[in-house]
């Protein structure tokens, strides 16, 4: 988020750019027409800005029409900028130093996201809050503090007490958070939504604080809060009667907790992945409780059996979603028959369960309204079974057949013919699938957005040609498809222009030509994996540097790329956040120097086995202000002193470092202690 000065007058080149450059194609046609109209109008008027005449209401309406690309819109003219500033409700801060200025500018912010802002700490918060007249916190309703490990309970409490309207807080993955932080959170009395995933230190005491303090809570996620036990859950279900969503995944809770949870009358979604102490007794409590239950997830609950699940089903006819991944060894016929009564059931995920054609047939005949079916790693999935299930479930949008290795083109053709609305199809490791099946897919499933063909050795250039007919594709995974080449990739690049995620891991026949096609066609790519594509060179990398939206780039073990290519990427890919350069041994200091200076948004970097010197490493680590995770294994040109210096330079910000285990005792213990104290994890390889 780069603050730009408001232009004094009409800025036609900017508008022109926003209309002509492919970047702004998200703007809907109607908006483009509208802009052209305005543009012409202004050209005629020449001197005055017409927007002065329009009321703010109308301007806001115009802005509402432009959904996604508000950024380029802001650059159009002063009025647009002003209206955009006043109507902006959410803000995601990348660097803390801009926060205050931005908050002054955008005075109606309701949602503040600090999750990608490295090391926001108590001091920063106190400065923000004490800053004179700014009462920006008055309107804040949502606070995203995920991974904000620098913030302690003092700062957290200050922040929460300053936001009287706060309704939602996300403190997920703040591993160090404990009861004190929970107690700070409990000050938010209007809180309705709270995500505490992986706050490892929170115990029943902390949960009790929250349960008593935030009695209006509607949504609570306690995933991986491993210290919480039945007592805490019991109190929660006595105090927070408004709960609609509850996630207790991986907690060491027993069936007793379910007895308490069953008393929550408004609960709609209940997730208990990996609660290995809960058994059928607990599920039977749910049979009579939670009358509004719509979704239940009992994945990886080893003690749950089909009969327990059946009791839940029989008690809730309005159930919409049932997840039972990796918890049942086999589906029983009574359970499937029980599904018959569930008219609203949309989603079934039974990954890892042994199924038979018969079972799949019952699902097909009983669950007509199914939208998503997950059969990943199920044993016993055959062509016949798939044909029977899809013939009944014509509305399927998501079908996961990962590792169902025995299915062939016949099944794929049937899927394509039966489910025209299919949006997501996962066929990882289905290596009997060939172009024949994918041909039908390309013909029928034009809504397809996500296709996973990882490790399908049957996929070749012709198959890619057929797939490219699915022009809506957003995510395409072709990892380990060793038979595809530049020709196939060019087909994809030409037709699938909406692609944002492409995985070409170990597609060894892909070369610079394919990448050139990709760079022109799929210019919305944000994630690109080219690891082990060892034919590509700097030429290909230069093409890639044209992908302005690119944020994740994996270039692991590509022997031919050098500093020249990396420099191009560093300069052009402004959004680059994750970069993997492991084993790229030809990149030297100048390449890393470029990264240090240009790739200012870099969050994670893997430069293990790279040829970087003390000096440049130090520069890189101190200069990249957003860097949070660095993997620095086997840096042959770096001395221990150089590494220490580099670590010292990034000590305040970095959260994770991976180092060579042989250095464990040569690095000064004082640095390691400081790292520990700052909440930074060191992983020894």
């Amino acid at each position, binding site marked *: 988020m780069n603050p730009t000065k408001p232009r004094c007058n009409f800025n036609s080149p900017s508008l022109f750019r926003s209309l002509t450059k492919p970047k702004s194609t998200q703007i809907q046609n109607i908006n483009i027409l509208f802009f052209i109209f305005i543009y012409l109008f202004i050209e005629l008027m020449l001197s005055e800005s017409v927007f002065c005449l329009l009321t703010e209401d109308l301007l806001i309406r115009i802005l509402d029409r432009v959904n996604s690309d508000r950024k380029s819109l802001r650059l159009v003219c002063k009025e647009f900028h002003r209206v955009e500033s006043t109507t902006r409700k959410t803000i995601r801060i990348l660097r803390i130093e801009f926060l205050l200025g931005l908050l002054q500018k955008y005075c109606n912010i309701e949602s503040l996201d600090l999750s990608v802002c490295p090391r926001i*700490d*108590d*001091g920063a918060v*106190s400065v923000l809050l004490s800053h004179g007249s700014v009462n920006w916190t008055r309107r804040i309703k949502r606070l995203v503090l995920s991974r904000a490990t620098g913030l*302690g*309970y*003092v*700062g957290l*409490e*200050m922040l929460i*007490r300053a936001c009287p309207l706060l309704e939602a807080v996300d403190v997920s993955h703040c591993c160090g958070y404990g*009861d*004190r932080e929970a*107690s*700070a959170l*409990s000050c938010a009395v209007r809180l309705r939504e709270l995500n505490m995933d992986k706050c490892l230190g929170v115990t*029943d*005491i*902390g949960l*009790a*604080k929250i349960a*008593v*303090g935030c009695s209006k809570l509607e949504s609570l996620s306690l995933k991986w809060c491993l210290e919480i036990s039945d*007592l*805490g859950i*019991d*109190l929660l279900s*006595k*105090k927070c009667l408004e709960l609609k969503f509850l996630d207790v995944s991986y907690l060491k809770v027993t069936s007793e907790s379910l007895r308490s949870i069953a008393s929550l009358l408004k609960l709609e979604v209940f997730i208990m992945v990996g609660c290995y102490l809960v058994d059928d007794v607990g599920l039977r409590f749910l049979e009579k409780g939670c009358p509004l239950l719509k979704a239940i997830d009992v994945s990886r609950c080893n003690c749950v059996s089909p009969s327990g699940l059946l009791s839940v089903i029989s008690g809730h006819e309005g159930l919409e979603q049932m997840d039972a991944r990796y918890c049942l060894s086999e589906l029983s016929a009574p359970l499937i028959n029980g599904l018959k009564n569930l008219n609203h059931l949309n989603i079934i995920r039974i990954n890892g369960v042994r199924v038979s054609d018969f079972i799949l047939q019952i699902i097909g005949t009983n669950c007509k309204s199914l939208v998503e079916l997950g059969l990943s790693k199920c044993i016993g999935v055959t062509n016949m079974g798939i044909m029977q299930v899809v013939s009944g479930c014509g509305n399927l949008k998501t079908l996961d057949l990962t590792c169902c290795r025995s299915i062939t083109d016949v099944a794929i053709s049937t899927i394509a013919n039966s489910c025209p609305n299919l949006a997501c199809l996962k066929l990882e490791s289905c290596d009997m699938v060939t172009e024949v099946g994918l041909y039908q897919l390309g013909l029928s499933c034009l809504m397809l957005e996500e296709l996973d063909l990882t490790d399908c050795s049957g996929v070749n250039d012709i198959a890619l040609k057929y797939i490219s007919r699915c022009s809506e594709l957003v995510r395409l995974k072709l990892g380990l498809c060793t038979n595809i080449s530049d020709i196939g990739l060019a087909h994809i690049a030409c037709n699938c222009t909406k692609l944002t995620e492409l995985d070409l891991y170990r597609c060894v026949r892909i070369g610079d030509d394919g990448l050139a096609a990709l760079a022109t066609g799929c210019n919305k790519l944000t994630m690109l994996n080219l690891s082990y594509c060892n034919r590509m060179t700097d030429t290909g990398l230069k093409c890639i540097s044209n992908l302005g939206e690119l944020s994740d780039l994996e270039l692991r073990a590509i022997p031919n790329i050098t500093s020249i290519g990396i420099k191009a990427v560093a300069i052009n890919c402004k959004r680059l956040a994750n970069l993997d350069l492991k084993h790229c041994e030809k990149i030297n200091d100048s390449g890393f120097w470029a990264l240090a200076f240009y790739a200012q948004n870099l969050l994670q970097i893997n430069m293990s086995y790279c040829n970087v010197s003390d000096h440049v490493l130090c520069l890189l680590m101190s200069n990249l202000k957003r860097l949070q995770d660095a993997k620095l294994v086997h840096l042959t040109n770096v001395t221990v002193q150089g590494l220490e210096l580099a670590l010292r330079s990034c000590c305040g910000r970095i959260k994770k470092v991976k180092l060579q285990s042989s250095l464990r005792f040569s690095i000064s213990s004082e640095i390691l202690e400081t790292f520990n*104290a*700052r*909440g930074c994890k060191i992983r020894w390889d």
Partner: protein
Amino acid sequence: MLFTQVTLINRILIPRIEFEMNPTGSLCANNWARSSSLVPPGNGLQTNLSLDPSSFFGVGIETPFKEINQPSPTQCVIPGESKKDVKITDQETSKLQDWDPSAMLNNLSFLEEKIHQLQDVVHMIVNKKFQPFEQPRELVTQEQQLITADLTSIIVQLISTAGSLLPSVRNTVANTSPLIGQLSQLRGINLPFGTGTSSGIQPQNNCENKLFDHSIQNDVPNKCEMEQNHNMEEHEHKDEEDMEEGENLPPGSYEILQLEKEEILAPHTHFCTICGKGFKRDANLRMHMRGHGDEYKTPAALAKPHKETGSEPKLIKRYSCPYGGCKRNKDHKKFQPLKTILCVKNHYKRTHCDKSYTCSRCHTKKFSVIADLKTHEKHCGKDKWLCSCGTTFSRKDKLFGHIALFQGHTPAIPLEENKGLAEPPDRCDAKENSTMVGSMNFCFGSNPSSENGIDNMMDVKGNIDDPINYFSSLNFEGCNFGAFNEFSQPPFEDSDSSFSFLMSGSFNYAPKSGGESCSDNL
């Protein structure tokens, strides 16, 4: 009305066992006499009473004295009562003398009398058998029941008197006959003929009681105080004593035994007849005996000795505390008996003995039963579950139950980690402080001369220190937030532990010291 006829009779007949003179007892006996007019004459009790009025008086008078004496064996004597005190000791010593032949003679004549009585009863049964249909059937069966009840009671009396003839048998009575509630009630029939004489005696006794009541009156409030204290202290222990509260045996359906103080406090109850070594358990003694020769190694010698008597329904035994004025003492108005000897021991030590075992961790809690100390030490210091209202709990689930029950209460995070500077000491903290102040005042009020008083002073010190620590550390935390707040935690730890100990200390101490101060004043 706490004592039924059976116990009364037992006591009358067995001089060794303390008798208590209950004015209401005779009243009840009269009632029963009326209801059981069917009972045949020839009851020997009358003769017994008339024969042996001296023993009757002796025992009857003895008890009130004991009542005065026993409440305060360790406390100072009531001023102006020294004469009576001497008298009491006389009585006691006379009682301690082993056996006197005249009493034995009395007993023997009583036995004789009893055997006659038994004969009469059997005669009557024989007569009844000849005319079975003269009366309505119900009445017949009722009568038969009455007779059998009568018979059993007589047999019981016989056995018990015979048992008392042996000088070695003291305090405990081998009473093995089946006496269940219904039967024992019917036993009342023994008395009506005795009432003539006993009613003559009773006024006297009443007078004497009154007299003593006057003298005791000074003592009474003190006793009450003590009792309250004991209750306060006792409610912590969840043991057999408390469980028993709800037992509600009808008075008289059990036999009451009372052990002497020395017996209760004796470390061992089972002694080897050969080497004299003492044991706590009979089983251990039996194991020990094996070392004394092969004759003790037989299965019969090693088996539990009382097993064979278990087949017969036994009279339930209940125990009374020898400490006068105690609720567990049979003279108490709301007497609640103790179930086992172990209960007696624990009760006596807990309530009437010094608490000599001090917790080595907190140095505050004291116990008189070592098992209690061990239980406490398991939980001392750690796992202090504290609510925002200031209440502490030893168990987490109790705390959570409390929180679930009361609106707005939250668990307090131990002070070491108390939340930061932005918050002024809120309602909860204020409450905590006020309770602390309360206990402080109380401590000051108590008499510091005693050992406990000194302890209390120490408590007060802790009290004063703690808030300071608390606030200063808070300030420290406040200044230090920001850069290195991870490092600023250790200073709290000490204050926390002392605080939690203080909370428990003040809670437990306040009532106790109050009680002691009262007794000191007297």
